[in-house]
């Protein structure tokens, strides 16, 4: 989905603020949410990492922007537990004594059928173009490379296609690649000639250039 999470190249967020001597967790609740997501039996009821990421992406946009990293984890976890019938929204709201914002429902989707995993279509050095597609569901193809031309720098093996794995429990592995883009291909002639951006992309996202 073309959501706020797909931030590459956006303007307006200001300077990067670095906290000196930052602790691993800032609050005890962050430790607990990390533990619930990383290691609880409940986590194993709510599907793949891709489904979890999509639940974060489905957060109401202003909530996504306001929320800290672990608040996003909390929201995604609660959303998926409700969607999988482990908890109800009423239980959460009641126990929290007020509101418990969840992510928006997933849209009705047409999930792509990837070709059966086979030998990689591209090799190191292949010229490729990223397909200009805008799926409504989960994808790991950032907007800032869609339609752009790059060169395969690595062939990484075969991994489940997130566009399927986030939504559907069926085999969907296909080759993935490291693709190199000159900064000028992405950002125009004002970009430096000696900068490259390397993005990791599944075969379904690519076509021969």
């Amino acid at each position, binding site marked *: 989905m073309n959501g706020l*999470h*797909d*931030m*590459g*190249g*956006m*303007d307006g*967020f*200001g*300077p*990067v*603020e670095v906290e000196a001597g*930052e602790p691993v*967790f*800032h*609050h*005890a*609740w962050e*430790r*607990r949410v*990390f*533990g*619930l997501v*990383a*290691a*609880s*039996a*409940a986590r194993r*009821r709510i599907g793949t990492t891709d489904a979890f*990421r999509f639940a974060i992406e489905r957060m109401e946009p202003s909530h996504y*922007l306001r929320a*800290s*990293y672990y608040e996003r984890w*909390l929201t995604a976890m*609660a959303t998926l*537990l409700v969607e999988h019938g*482990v*908890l109800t929204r009423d239980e*959460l709201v009641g*126990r*929290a004594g*007020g509101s418990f914002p969840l992510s928006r429902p997933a849209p009705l989707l047409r999930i792509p059928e990837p070709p059966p995993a086979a030998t990689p279509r591209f090799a190191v050095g292949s010229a490729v173009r990223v397909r200009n597609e805008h799926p409504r569901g989960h994808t*790991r*193809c*950032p907007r*800032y490379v869609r339609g752009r031309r790059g060169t395969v720098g*690595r062939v*990484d*093996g075969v*991994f489940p296609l997130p566009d399927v794995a986030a939504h559907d429990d069926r085999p969907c592995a296909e080759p*993935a690649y*490291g693709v190199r883009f000159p900064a000028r291909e992405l950002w125009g002639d004002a970009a*430096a000639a*000696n*900068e*490259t951006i390397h*993005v*990791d*992309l*599944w075969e379904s996202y690519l076509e021969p250039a």
Partner: protein
Amino acid sequence: MSAPEDDRDHHHPAPMSDVEVRARALEELLREKGLVDEGFIDAVVSAYANDIGPMNGARVVARAWVDAEYKKRLLADATAAIAELGYGGPQGEHMVVVENTPTVHNVVVCTLCSCYPWPVLGLPPRWYKSAAYRSRMVREPRVLLREMGLDLPESVEIRVWDSSAEIRYLVLPERPAGTEGLDAEALASRLTRDAMIGTARP
């Protein structure tokens, strides 16, 4: 993991924030349903809070600095070479190490979320997860690195690695001049997390 009350009663006398209330509500409900395995959660959280961090990556880098054969293996198959030192696990199953040289500087970002090589660097700092870092590093790396304190000569090529799929990246910085007499342990203690993300030099 400490009992939930500790945080509120002993360290934060202020009322609980909304998000803390929600976190407690979720945890209580899951515990009542028998879906919280306390011992396992405690062990995992404690490992990331105390044992898994940039010191692991520093040992990998320092070893590569003092052992040319190890460095070759690290650049050829980082996951296996890192496993030689005992490091691996979630978010480190498919590692790639990218090497800085006098003419090439590497830096890592995740524009879509906050992917990060947990076994060698631990959990990511807030700035790595921030909208500012995620949006800007792919667009204006030289400017952003300068803002963050790393002023690279215009002649140095910058390679930005957006970890958008399953690969997780570790930067192999250049060994600083004047460290020829130091052993791996001393070298590792000089390395910072940011040098292995690529926003600083050691």
